[in-house]
């Protein structure tokens, strides 16, 4: 992965906005790579999740040899929920304030690292993230990861509010309050969802590094699971530096190879 991203030093992603997007082929591996790598690089990581539980991330991180439960001093988890089944969790979160301790099915050694945010405005979500980052970074670089921002559109947040929210996150990055911003979004090319397309295009314009995964044009293959395109974008680069590779997901890792060079 480091070779694919041309990453030589742990500070290579400082001040960068990394965008992960997928189309017909999940980009989960790349997201989990950044979560685990940020913890290994001693960043304070704030993970905002819309549809996965903490246990899910902890289980996957363990495959990357990272123990999320033991890393709670530098790992903050915010769960965004809009489902009625989470009402109890939401009520408890409201009773104990947004960043208070929470007794839920998501267990961690340090309960204060868990927050729940339910159907509130994006402004409150921004304030919560800002508070978590500024209070817990303790001089260490901080990294914000949102999985996945396009789902916020589906839970009733307007595209305008979402773009304003992203603008504020980028401002945090520019003022160095945040060291690294990683957003995951989803857009299927064959689905006419104008808001998702607009969000992806806006994020692409703003990003420094864009990882895009898509399925093979020729259809499903047992040996090649998809293509990943890495776009390196700079404010004054006329065209992004792009290269595309193919990949195959394995049980605990991923096999990335040049197009047409699958070993199977």
């Amino acid at each position, binding site marked *: 992965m480091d070779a694919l991203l041309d990453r030589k030093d742990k500070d290579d992603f400082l001040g960068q906005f990394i965008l992960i997007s997928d189309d017909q082929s999940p980009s989960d591996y790349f997201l989990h790579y950044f979560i685990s790598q940020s913890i290994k690089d001693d960043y304070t990581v704030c993970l905002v999740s819309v549809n996965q539980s903490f246990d899910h991330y902890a289980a996957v991180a363990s495959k990357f040899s990272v123990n999320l439960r033991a890393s709670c001093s530098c790992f903050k988890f915010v769960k965004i929920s809009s489902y009625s089944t989470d009402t109890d969790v939401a009520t408890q979160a409201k009773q104990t304030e947004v960043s208070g301790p929470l007794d839920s099915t998501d267990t961690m050694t340090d309960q204060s690292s868990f927050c729940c945010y339910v159907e509130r405005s994006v402004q409150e979500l921004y*304030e919560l993230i800002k508070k978590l980052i500024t209070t817990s970074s303790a001089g260490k670089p901080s990294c914000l990861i949102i999985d996945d921002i396009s789902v916020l559109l589906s839970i009733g947040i307007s595209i305008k509010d979402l773009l304003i929210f992203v603008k504020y996150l980028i401002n945090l990055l*520019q003022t160095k309050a945040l060291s690294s911003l990683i957003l995951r979004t989803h857009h299927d090319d064959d689905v006419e969802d104008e808001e998702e397309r607009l969000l992806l295009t806006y994020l692409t314009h703003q990003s420094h590094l864009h990882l895009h995964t898509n399925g093979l044009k020729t259809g499903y293959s047992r040996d090649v699971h998809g293509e990943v395109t890495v776009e390196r974008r700079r404010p004054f680069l*006329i065209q992004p530096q792009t290269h595309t590779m193919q990949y195959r997901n394995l049980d605990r890792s991923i096999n990335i190879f040049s197009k047409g060079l699958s070993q199977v």
Partner: protein
Amino acid sequence: MAVLLKSIISGTEESSKVLLEDSTEHNGRPLLRNILIQLVKRYDIVHVLLTDLSKDTWIGGLSEFVLKRIIISQCLTDPVGWNIKSDKSPDILMNIFRFPKPAMSSSLALIVDNLSTLLIYYEYTELCRTIQTLGKSYSTSYYLIHHDLCEDHISNGLHHVMSSTIRMFPRRNDQKLLCSLCHKRKSGKILREINTYAIENEDIICHKYEEKNKIEKSVEQVPIDPTANLTFDLRLTERQKQDRSRVILPYTQQINKSGETQMGSGLVTYELDEVDDWDESDPDDDLDI
């Protein structure tokens, strides 16, 4: 023959409001920043308004000569008041374009990077009105917009307000950087061109793309003769062509008649220039229907 892009940037072709339309595949900022370098040579002060990038990022790599002649303002750092925890509505658009007052006799130019972010907060009609108003204060102004973030009606509205639009095309393979230009002269004449450009150091090297394309087309078209394998003859001999040209068509007769009655009262002639595309077989092909 002057290249339109070069003429607009150098000021030989007067243009008060220029829109640069870029996309994720072809970034317009390098060209915009190079235009700034050309503008500081002609104007006393150039105002630069940033909506996305920070000042430090934008001015990185600019020479001392340029930095002395520009005033940069970064807007939308807290557009809706989330950082001060208030329900602040965005500033009045005109206030965003407020720069320190220059000396009375200073000539001013404006660069805006970019309009797409402003369109999140403001209606495009308000933006168009503001651009019109700003036209009175600035001799020339350049606006960058990401056209892939722009709906068609917004794009069309902005085209009406602008005197020139430069749309960047995505580059394919080793092709040169292409942009299509539409320039409206004050006289009302509209010039359209496709140009290639390259940025070398602080200079912009432009060429007409159309001419080369025409040459390529004519080279391709020479060997193709659609009448070659027909079972009937569609070609005309020289003699037949001469005979055809002698036929007096009804409307030419009309003109001749009226010419006879108005003998000595003057004659209006129209000379075709390079922009006119006169095709007798399809006189309406220049209409955008």
